[in-house]
Structures are given as C-alpha cells and as structure tokens.
C-alpha cells in the first residue's frame, strides 16, 4: 500500500507532495529572506541618511544621569551606559526574585484555600482570584503606587514602627547595621537561602524523622534566621545601627526601600499569586480522589496525606505552568516604567535610548536579555521534565 507521502507511479513530480513541500519551503525562505534583506537595507539607508550612529560604541560612554536605586556602585559622573545596563538588570532581577518567592507563598496559600471545606475561606480565595485576574496589572500597579503608597504620610509625619523603622510616602526606612554594605547583606542572604534549600534537598527525600514536615520547617527556619545572627555575632556583633532619622528634606541614613519598589513588588505578587493559585488548584485536583482515600485507609493523617501522597504527585502537574508564571512575572516587571522604578526597561529603553539616540540597538539588546531568561528557564524545565516525567509502563 502506498503511504500518502510516497508518490504513486505515474504522478508527475509537481503533484508530488514531497516536491511541493520542498518548493513551498524554498519559496517561503526566499520570500522571507527578501523581505528581511530589503527591510534591513531600508533601515540602513534610513539610518545613514539621518546620520544616526550605530553599533555599541555608547557602551563605554559616561552616562551622566542619576539612578534612584543602585545595588552596585554607580555614579552619574564616572559610570558608563554599560554600568547603567547592569544596574538596571540587577534591579529587574531583584524585583523578579523577591516577587517569585512571595508570589509562590501567597499563590500556594490561596490555591489550597480555594479547595478548603470552609465556606468563608473558599469564597474569599475565589473572590480574590476572580477580582485580581480580571483587572489589568498596569492599573493595579498605578493603584498601589498612586492611590495607596502616596496616601501614606509625608516624611515629616512618618509612621514610626518598632525597631526604629520609619514608613512614609518616600519609602520604608530601616536601621542599617554599620558593618555591612549592600553586597555583604546580599551575600549573607544568598548563602542563607542556598543552605536552607540544600538542607531541604538533602533531607526532604528521607522518610524518617528528618523528613517530617514539621521537623524540616523548624530546621529550615532556624537556618534562615540563625545564620544571619551567627554571621552578625562573628563579624563582631557591632550593636551599632545607622538609624534612619528625619532630616530637613528627607529621611537620612538607614537602609531605604523605595516606594516604587514596594509598589512594583506588591502589584506583581498580588497579580501573579492569583494565577499561581489557579495552577496549584488545578494541580491538586489532578490527583485522583482514590489516592487520598487510599492514604486514609492506610491510616495516614491529613497533613501526611498531603505531604507524602498528594503534593508530590501534584507537583508534576504544577511545575511547568508555575515556571511559566515565574517568567510572566519577570516580563511583567517591565511595567516598572509606569511608576518610575529604575528597572532594565526604564533605564535602558527610557533614558539611555534617548540620550544616545540609538533606539534600535537598545531595544534589541533589551529583548535579548528577556529572551535569554526564557531560554534558560526552558532549558532548566526540560531538564526537570526529563528527570521527573512519569515512567510509562
């Protein structure tokens, strides 16, 4: 029997699907190639005629503008546009990292709450998801920034929170231990989180005492809290803090968190959590009812059932769409432009594109950054899927 893609004898080659396919592809490539060629040609002509510089020569030119949040050293007078790029990239990553952690916590809580037997809990969670998912993120960000954070008192009338923390419409100001600069705090934080994750990884698989969720969380928590304290003591326990104080114009000293940052993280977390909640709900519901029944028949308690039976199976369904949500959160952080938070898009396609007058290079570069985020994530996901895929029998 002739398979459909093999030409039957006597059929002319131009009616043969195989040759037709090749011809179509050649035609398509030629057409697209021509389009791309003429577009690039036109762009080059247009750029040449308007005497716009091209290339990345601007990378080493002094930037000259100030940035409100810099995690690495940056000074308007000596730092280059390249440095500004890294500042923006780091600002984006910080928002994304913090947003992902918080949105996961909130999203899982709400996702579980949507399946709760308690009427009020279930209704509240459903109401949250419906409300948040149906209002544009940009509007929510503007609301948090312009309507909520700006409604906080001015710096002169700051809320004074315990521990010398000040809260006003200029941001959140916390005492800063004098021994550490930003990088040290960041490094300690990173090491702590890494250790806690490692601990969980090592111990999470064992079924005995260490594997019990209670024991595990107590130890994780103690690593998270304990390690910074140990570091603090080892460094010499300098009980001196740089307390923020109200100056003539501003709050002086202390560790400052910008209201733009707070609004952005808040908006992204609240928005993304609603989507994560749906992902989690779908994942939990994908575990057949019989699994729970069987677990109970074996005498497992409800937390044990969740921890040992339901969650491990649900995770397989949850992880892929969850990573998608993480990527969405990262991409959505570009809405920072609307509320003046200096992320990559705001610094780069906003200020730098305008100062250098080279929008093409800058937009392409910005897109490449986000594309590489996606690429790395899909690689990691493929790796994960390969390891955790159900083994078909």
């Amino acid at each position, binding site marked *: 029997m002739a398979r459909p893609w093999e030409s039957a004898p006597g059929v002319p080659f131009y009616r043969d699907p195989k040759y037709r396919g090749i011809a179509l592809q050649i035609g398509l490539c030629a057409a697209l190639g021509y389009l791309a060629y003429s577009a690039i040609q036109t762009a080059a002509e*247009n750029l040449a*005629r*308007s*005497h*716009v*510089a091209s290339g990345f020569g601007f990378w080493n030119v002094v930037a*000259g*503008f*100030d*940035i*409100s949040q810099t995690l690495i050293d940056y000074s*308007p*007078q000596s730092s280059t546009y390249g440095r500004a790029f890294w500042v923006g990239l780091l600002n984006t990553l910080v928002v994304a990292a913090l947003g992902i952690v918080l949105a996961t916590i909130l999203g899982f809580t709400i996702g579980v709450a949507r399946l709760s037997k308690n009427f009020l809990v279930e209704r509240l969670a459903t109401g949250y998801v419906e409300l948040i998912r149906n209002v544009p993120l940009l509007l929510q960000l503007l609301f948090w920034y*312009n309507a909520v954070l*700006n409604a906080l008192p*001015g*710096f002169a009338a700051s809320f004074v929170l315990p521990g010398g923390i000040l809260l006003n*419409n*200029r941001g959140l100001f916390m005492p800063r231990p004098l021994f550490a600069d930003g990088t040290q705090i960041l490094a300690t934080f990173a090491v702590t989180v890494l250790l806690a994750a490692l601990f969980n990884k090592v111990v999470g698989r064992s079924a005995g005492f260490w594997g019990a969720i209670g024991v595990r969380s107590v130890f994780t928590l103690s690593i998270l809290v304990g390690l910074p304290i140990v570091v603090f003591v080892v460094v010499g326990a300098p009980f001196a803090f740089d307390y923020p104080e109200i*100056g*003539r*114009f*501003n709050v*002086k000293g202390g560790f400052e968190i910008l*209201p*733009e940052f707070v609004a952005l993280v808040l908006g992204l977390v609240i928005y993304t959590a609603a989507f994560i909640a749906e992902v989690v709900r779908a994942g939990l519901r994908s575990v057949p009812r019989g699994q729970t029944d069987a677990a109970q028949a074996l005498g497992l308690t409800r937390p044990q059932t969740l921890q040992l039976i339901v969650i491990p199976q649900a995770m397989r369904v949850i992880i892929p769409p969850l990573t998608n949500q993480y990527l969405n959160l990262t991409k959505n952080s570009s809405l920072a*432009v*609307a509320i*003046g938070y*200096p992320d990559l898009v*705001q610094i780069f396609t*906003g*200020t730098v*594109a*305008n*100062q250098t*007058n080279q*929008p093409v290079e800058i937009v392409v570069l910005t897109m490449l950054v986000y594309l590489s985020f996606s690429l790395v994530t899909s690689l990691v996901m493929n790796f994960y899927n390969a390891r955790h895929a159900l083994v078909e029998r």
Partner: protein
Amino acid sequence: MKRIAQALFAAAVAFVVSGAADAATLDTVKQRGILNCGANGQLPGFGLPDSQGNWTGLDVDFCRAVAAAIFNDATKVKFIPLTAANRFAALQTGDVDVLARNTTWTLSRDAQGLNPTGINYYDGQGFIIRKALKVNSALELNDAAICVQQGTTTELNLADYFRTNRMRLKTVTFATLDEALKAYETSRCDAFTTDASGLYSTRLKLAKADDHVVLPEIISKEPLGPFVRQGDDQWFDIVKWVHFAMLNAEELNVNKANVDEQLKSENPEIRRLLGAENNFGEQLGLTKDWVYRIVKLVGNYGEAFDRNVGQGSPLKITRGLNALWTKGGIQYAPPVR
C-alpha cells in the same frame, strides 16, 4: 460596488500611510496638504490641546507659522503629541516634519542626525519647591529628593549641578512631565526640576499654585528651539527662516493688525520682508508673500510670545533674554535681503 471597494481600499491605504519621510520634505508636505508637527501636549504655554483638541502654545504657533508660509492656511497642521523619550525617533522616522517641542539645542543632538533651526526660547533649568520648607536657594537642597522627567537634558544637568556643589541627591525619574509633577505634588519629592519656563507653566497645574515657589537659581543653559531632520537643506532653511521672519517682523513693527498697511510701507526693509520687493520667498521654495502670510495668520514673534507665555497669558513670563536685541534681549535675526 466596485467604486465603493476602491474607495474603501483608498481609505485603508490612507490610514496606513499617513506621511512620508522623503528627502524633499517640502514636496511631501505640499502633496500631503498638511504639516505634521511634533508638539509637547502637556505643557501649557508651549504646547497643549484643550478638551476639544484645539492646540495652543509658543511652539504650536511656530508650526502654524510654517503652515501659513507653505499653504497660506495656518490650520493645515496636525499636532502630534510626543514625549521627551520618543520625540527624536518620531522626527527621524518621518512621523513629524518639524519637532517644536521645547527641545534643547546641544552638540550631541546636533551631531546625531538632528538639525536645530534656531532658538525660539532662551531658557534655563530651575527648581520649584514648597514654600513651607523655607528654602531660598538651590544650594540648600543637599539630600533633597528631586522629581525629574526621564530622557531630558534636565536629568543630566541635575546630576552635574549637585556634583559640582558637593551636594547629595536623590533623583526620582518619571517617563512623563505630568507623572513627575504629580509625584512632586503628592510630596514624593521635595522639589521638582525642569526648564524655568516649564516651571511657570506646570505651576498652573498644581492644585494650590501659591504654596509653591520657584527658586532663583538657573543651573543650565537651555536654548529651546525647533528641530528638523538632517539631510534636507531646503527644508532646514525654510524652518530656520520662519523663525527669523517672525523676529524681523517684530523688529520692524509689523504685526497682525497692521500688516496690510505695512504692505504699502516705503521702508525697503519692510518691503523686502513682506515680498513687496524682490522674491526672497521664492528663493526658499515658498512664495513671495510668505512673511505676509505668517504675520497675517499667526503674528510676529512678540505677539506669539505675549499670547502664549507672556503678559497676555496666565503664565506672565517676562521677555528677559527673549526680548529683541534692540530691547536688551538676545533674540537677533539675520536680515532678509
């Protein structure tokens, strides 16, 4: 049926192709029948549409003058509101024929494929601050948080000024002037900075304008003027000379009210200006009566100034540097001859 289909197609094409950035801008503009002018859209006195979409402002009047010179009709202008961040791209991609959006003439802009055609407003950067803070000088602003619009020379000058005076600065940057101003008004920042002219006009947008004061320091030179694309000398000349024509008209006391009488004047300078003698307009590619059209339909520079930013406007800015050179200012136009 076929005709309707053709007309629909034409409408679709007209929707898609709204302008052309050909080398001969004058021909394109004439063919299109309308001048595309990049304007501010948020700045009272320079470029702002009202709720009916009627534009007013000094820069707006400049574009009207260009349209008057070309079409003998000052209404044949389409104003396209641009932000600081997208204005140059709009000019370079041919979206607008003239960029009249209180734009500062700097070397890098001149070199980067843009041509400033003149200076229609000599400005400098200043600060506005709440009266309650009792600040008398910009030099007292150490540690202040300052709201500024992104992608402007203002953003750069601000950093320079604080550095020069060894003061610490907290910049809060926003994409548009309105956002920056709104943030200042809700006291996100202590002060707001932009060109001094902009300070006077944005002050009108504050709910309680009297609670705010403009500081005396001017920290930079901000010569504002219209820009055109590089590479079309004829168009560059036309836009350049529209400004000079308006200045010369003021200098020769030719205004909207008396322009018809002045046409009969014996003064050779006026006769040359209004086209009663020689054909200077034609040398530019326009008509002989190009200046007559400008003055008749829009007015001279002084009239445009008074109406939009001067004593005849809510801004009440004095002429200062923008007075004619004969009256103590530095507005000086080469002669028409």
